[in-house]
């Protein structure tokens, strides 16, 4: 699946359009970064409310192609710059993590 497949009126992409072509397979949802590091699989979409530069660092270390910030969390300019440097897509939505996962399953993206 591609990051672009997720996008509709409820989701916004913050990084350059190119990152919308990032492929992901499966998803990991979590807000404790050590647990994300331990459990997320390479290629997963990360769904979290933790929007800071460390989230991007964790995505780099765990080979996660995209981060979806939920419940209205949005990335800072610094995060966007860092994510683009590492070719990671940053998205956001007002939905909760559970709503996101149910939505992605319903649309056969997971």
């Amino acid at each position, binding site marked *: 699946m591609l990051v672009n497949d997720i996008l509709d009126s409820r989701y916004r992409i913050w990084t350059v359009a190119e990152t919308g072509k990032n492929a992901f397979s499966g998803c990991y949802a979590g807000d*404790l970064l050590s647990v994300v590091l331990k459990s997320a699989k390479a290629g997963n979409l990360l769904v979290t409310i933790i929007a800071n*530069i460390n989230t991007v660092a964790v995505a780099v270390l765990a080979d996660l192609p995209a981060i979806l910030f939920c419940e209205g969390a949005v990335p800072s300019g610094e995060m966007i710059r860092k994510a683009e440097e590492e070719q990671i897509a940053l998205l956001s939505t007002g939905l909760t993590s559970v709503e996101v996962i149910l939505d992605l399953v319903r649309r056969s993206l997971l």
Partner: protein
Amino acid sequence: MITLDRHFVIVPNDYNEAGKASSELKRTLKRMGFSRDLIKRVSVASYEAEINIVIHSLGGTADFKIIDDVIYLQFIDCGPGIPDIELAMQEGFSTANEVSRLNGFGAGMGLKNIKKAADDMILVSDCNGTVLKLKFYIREDDKNVG
């Protein structure tokens, strides 16, 4: 033969710079063509250790070396030390403050993740500071993959 020798200073409470040393280490290991599994184990351990110094210590250093077929990571900080290592090693135990938790840290998984990732781990701590030494063996099938 020494094929990597890098030194980093880790600044306490600087969440913006946290993870910089580990990210660079990961990039270097990737460039050196090691397997994805080895790179993940080394970079996860390195990141957790680096974050521990940022969150809990008065500042410290990280040293990364590769000598022959072993990767050595050494983290030293200037205190205040871990009062009870056995307790700190327990999954879920954390002394991280509110700011750390808001930054997504403080799961109480750090040392446990490190121990699981490394082939060898030595942790020594007193009120003067903490020394963490990690060893990762490079197996034949970890080489020239990337």
